[in-house]
């Protein structure tokens, strides 16, 4: 009987040891939240951001993790709805207990999450380009919000710089979605740059999210006879604006935003409608250094990498480096500690260039941008630019 009791006790101790060790192993994971559009109209961006970050984490995990701890992503789908993003962030903070969150590449969501993060104190690093997602109206940064690609201001000033200095264009028209914070955030700095540098805005036309037919606005734009039309819009709107401009016989130069790949080349758009379009992009797709990643990405996911995939990789790198630095101060870094370390990100060798975050704005400093043009149905890199005020 004594032997049996001893055996049972040993089994219990062994089980406790196994499960105890298991529990310890689970505790050794770094939980990273991920809020992306994984099924809605912007899922191409959401998936690319997620995939890029996941590929960086896979590389780190394969090499032993961060101080022996594996990185694990917990994802929620926003379906492109702001309220879903807010619920997901709250769930990640309160139930999943993540230490940091990968944010969505959607401006409206970044702007909505910024004040909530002040209360939850869990940092979010994402691709929401609108500057209001990272800085408050007084110009100071939101404590827990960080951007991992060029801001909308930087993007808009880059294409404006190219249009004014290189293309020598003077008369501009605008066509954009006035209900979309991202489009509005691109238009304002573009107009400021162009008008400060001798250009004029001869037509400013807007549309609503539900609208699909923009020919009334484009007819007015055609009548104003601009040299260029700036059309910074969302993926589902890009093929329509291009096609309808072409159908109305508009010959002006079209200037776009960083969503023009691959959506300017959609199957229902006449290739002639997108021919010659200029747009800014965060990476140079023809760079041989990116080709290895692009090949791995396409092999893993079955579709090509777009700019957000490269930004996602850089974002993953910034998270890992911040975590490594934070671990020297604390065994279990707090949201405040991680936010402080993210703000110290310096020269991470990312795909977008040397990735540094400005502590004054929580946005990257001096990242390069490229101007691409659609030639023969394919995007071709023309020039590498850093607008002076972004350095």
């Amino acid at each position, binding site marked *: 009987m004594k032997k049996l009791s001893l055996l049972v006790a040993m089994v219990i101790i062994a089980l406790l040891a196994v499960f105890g060790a298991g529990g310890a192993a689970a505790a050794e994971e770094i939980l990273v939240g991920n809020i992306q559009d994984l099924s809605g*109209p912007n899922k191409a961006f959401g998936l690319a951001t997620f995939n890029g970050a996941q590929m960086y984490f896979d590389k780190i995990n394969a090499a032993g993790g961060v101080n022996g701890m594996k990185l694990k992503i917990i994802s929620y789908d926003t379906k492109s709805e702001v309220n879903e993003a807010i619920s997901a962030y709250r769930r990640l903070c309160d139930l999943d207990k993540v230490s940091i969150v990968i944010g969505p590449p959607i401006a409206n969501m970044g702007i909505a999450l910024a004040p909530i993060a002040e209360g939850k104190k869990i940092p979010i690093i994402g691709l929401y380009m609108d500057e209001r997602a990272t800085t408050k109206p007084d110009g100071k940064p939101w404590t827990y919000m960080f951007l991992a690609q060029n801001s909308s201001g930087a993007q808009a000033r880059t294409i404006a710089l190219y249009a004014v200095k290189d293309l020598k264009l003077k008369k501009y028209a605008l066509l954009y979605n006035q209900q979309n914070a991202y489009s509005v955030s691109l238009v304002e700095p573009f107009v400021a740059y162009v008008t400060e540098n001798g250009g004029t805005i001869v037509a400013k036309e807007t549309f609503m999210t539900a609208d699909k037919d923009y020919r009334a606005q484009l007819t007015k734009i055609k009548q104003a006879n601009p040299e260029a039309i700036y059309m910074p819009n969302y993926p589902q709107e890009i093929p329509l604006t291009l096609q309808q401009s072409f159908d109305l016989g508009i010959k002006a130069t079209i200037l776009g935003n960083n969503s023009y790949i691959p959506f300017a080349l959609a199957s229902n758009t006449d290739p002639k409608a997108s021919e010659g379009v200029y747009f800014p992009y965060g990476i140079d797709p023809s760079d041989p250094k990116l080709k290895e990643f692009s090949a791995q990405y396409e092999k893993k996911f079955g579709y090509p990498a777009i700019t957000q995939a490269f930004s996602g990789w850089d974002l993953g790198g910034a998270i890992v480096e911040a975590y490594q630095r934070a671990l020297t101060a604390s065994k279990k870094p707090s949201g405040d500690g991680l936010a402080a370390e993210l703000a110290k990100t310096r020269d991470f060798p990312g795909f977008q260039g040397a990735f540094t975050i400005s502590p004054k704005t929580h946005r990257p400093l001096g990242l390069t941008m490229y101007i691409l043009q659609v030639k023969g149905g394919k995007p071709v890199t023309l020039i590498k630019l850093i607008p002076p005020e972004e350095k």
Partner: protein
Amino acid sequence: MEASQFLSVAMQQIVNGISLGAVYALIAVGFAMVFNVLKFSNFSHGGVLGTGAYLGYLAALYLKLPLIPVLLIGMLMGGLVAVGVEFVAFRSIRKKRGQLVYFFVTSVTMLMLLEQILVIFFGASFFTYPTMIRTTSFSLGGINFTVLYLVMMAVSLLAFGTLAWALKYTKLGIAIRAASNDLTTTNLMGVNVDFIVMATFFVSGMLGGLSGVLLGMTYTLYPQIGQLVVKGFIACVLGGLGSVTGAAWGALALAVVEVSLIAIMGAGLSPAVIFAIMVAFLLVRPQGFAGVSFQEKA
């Protein structure tokens, strides 16, 4: 602006309005068909339109069919889905002589259900139809015409012509007209009312599927594409609920007014002004253009 330039711009905007009117007219006529017979606003027509658009897209993408077979598949599928909707959602309400408000609520529910089914199968992301018409536009006398819109107008005219002929001269058409006048008496006269209602939904669904495919080709394909049915509803109200011809004219008027308002005051204000015009119009002429009274109808 010079007079000739103003005239050219005004003409272009009228062409823009008329071609948009063709889009709305197709939706409006399908919508008006069901109203004619069952006297309720059938918002599930939007769901049928969306389903037809996606099924036409699958036929174009995977079977690599040209334009006309894709349109025919969209029409057939739209018709079948509409018959299914009638059987599942509306038949029992009709048999139990349910109030019109039940039909109305069920139709909105069916619109949402069909939308969600599209989200489940295709996701909420958008798709683009493969290229089916090589030449997209041409210019005539300084006015630019979009080929797809012209195709849409031609198809609309053909569909309306066929529908008008069938309603007037075929046995089924006469029965549908009789049913639209008085469903109970038609039944007493020995007409199989279930079949007539089913046929009405089938024809309405065919128009829905047709407009879905054409809308998907002209714009992009997304699960909420069926919500354009609201434009069809406004057109029907303007044209006079219960009149198929009035619905077509209402659609044309709505599109021309919409385009003109965008040109004059911008896209931000125009929806509010359109609804204000609609309210004012109904105060003055509640029976719409066609003069058919819509009192006692939901």
